[in-house]
């Protein structure tokens, strides 16, 4: 069963709809005790990373999340939250993965936000099991996670190379929206729900 951290950063209807389609059970995490009820944890998130971090802090779950040893998946802003810092609101984040979240630079001659389907090159990682290399996923974001070969498990390019997915121990993060990325995205959600550590 997947526990979804319910901290009010963005709408989770599409995520729960995707899990329903995949027949993956889920429930909401509102308290520290709730974290014990589930085998896997998803941190969703849309919007402003600094504001999302404030909302997460107000749930009182930050320390408990950082101590988790079960598989955790951050999606979009949820992924950014597990990094050390975001330029969005100059915010210190969970610092589970010591990388930075930075703003896309329009001087790279790109439109911002990065919105649409982009190819994702991935390493041999169980999260991407059965996903074709360079399969396309749906992205919507103005801030990106800097590419760092130690923690990167999948990369994409938009003006520059950035991390589309990262991992450190039991913590995973994906910048794209698996719940909106067709069959490839559904495969990621299925793979995550099957991860055992």
């Amino acid at each position, binding site marked *: 069963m997947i526990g979804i951290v319910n901290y009010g950063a963005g709408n989770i209807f599409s995520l729960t*709809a995707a899990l329903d389609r995949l027949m993956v059970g889920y429930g909401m995490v509102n308290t520290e005790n709730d974290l014990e009820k589930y085998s896997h944890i998803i941190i969703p998130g849309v919007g402003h990373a600094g504001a999302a971090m404030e909302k997460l802090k107000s749930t009182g779950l930050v320390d408990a999340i950082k101590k988790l040893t079960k598989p955790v998946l951050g999606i979009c802003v949820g992924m950014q939250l597990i990094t050390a810092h975001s330029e969005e609101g100059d915010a210190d984040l969970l610092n589970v993965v010591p990388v930075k979240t930075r703003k896309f630079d329009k001087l790279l001659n790109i439109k*911002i936000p990065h*919105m649409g*389907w982009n190819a994702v090159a991935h390493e041999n990682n169980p999260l991407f099991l059965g996903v074709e290399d360079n399969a396309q996923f749906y992205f919507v974001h103005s801030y990106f996670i800097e590419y760092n070969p130690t923690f990167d498990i999948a990369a994409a390019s938009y003006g520059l190379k950035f991390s589309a997915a990262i991992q450190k121990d039991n913590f995973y993060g994906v910048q794209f929206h698996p719940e909106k*990325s067709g069959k490839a995205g559904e495969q990621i959600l299925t793979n995550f729900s099957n991860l055992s550590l």
Partner: protein
Amino acid sequence: MLSKRIIPCLDVKDGRTVKGVNFVDLRDAGDPVELAAQYAQQGADELVFLDITATHERRKTMIEMVKSVARQLNIPFTIGGGITEIADAEALLNAGADKISINSAAVRNPKLIEELAKAFGVQFVVLAVDTKYVDGKNMVHLNGGRLITELETETWIKQAEDLGAGEILLTSMDHDGTKAGFDCGLLGKINEMINIPIIASGGAGSMDHFTEVFQKANVDAALAASVFHYGEILIPDLKQELKSNNIPVRL
């Protein structure tokens, strides 16, 4: 590389999909939820639902339809029509919509763009603009092209970008329904002016028209309705055709 997006548009009235020629004569083309699922299967990159009666009849977009679309669809979608305040947008977001498109309400109250962007992020706010060439100028029109405004299209779009619109959906009323091709000249000009994605709309009649609008205007996405609804262009064929013309697409 970021793919160019193909977006079928479902004009919805009374819970059914319709598409008129030059927005007048309405014809029935099916159940929106079923159509949406079919398009996702065929490889559509995104969908737009416009409640075309919402504006002049002041009807709110149907939340239940949005929910059933979100339950079935594994691609993003936008809802437009009748959104005049934050509460409308929030209800749609909570029902599973990825983006909302606003048109008349933004013209009447440009601050709405700013308020929506602040509340939900710029990525949530699509500004739809219906434009028509009148006396040597591109003028913004409202209510499905029935009502001319005093706004020049170029000025309005630039202002909207500054206010926080995350994407522009530009429909040429001169081209819409003609099946004679997109308005590549205007689209290219607007695209040069702004730093947010732009969706071309109005005039798609053949696969060549899509190739042309991506090559000439370098838009981020192209939207069409009837050519898809009546099966005149099949999305898998269109994507192959674009790919053979070196336009990046998702297959």
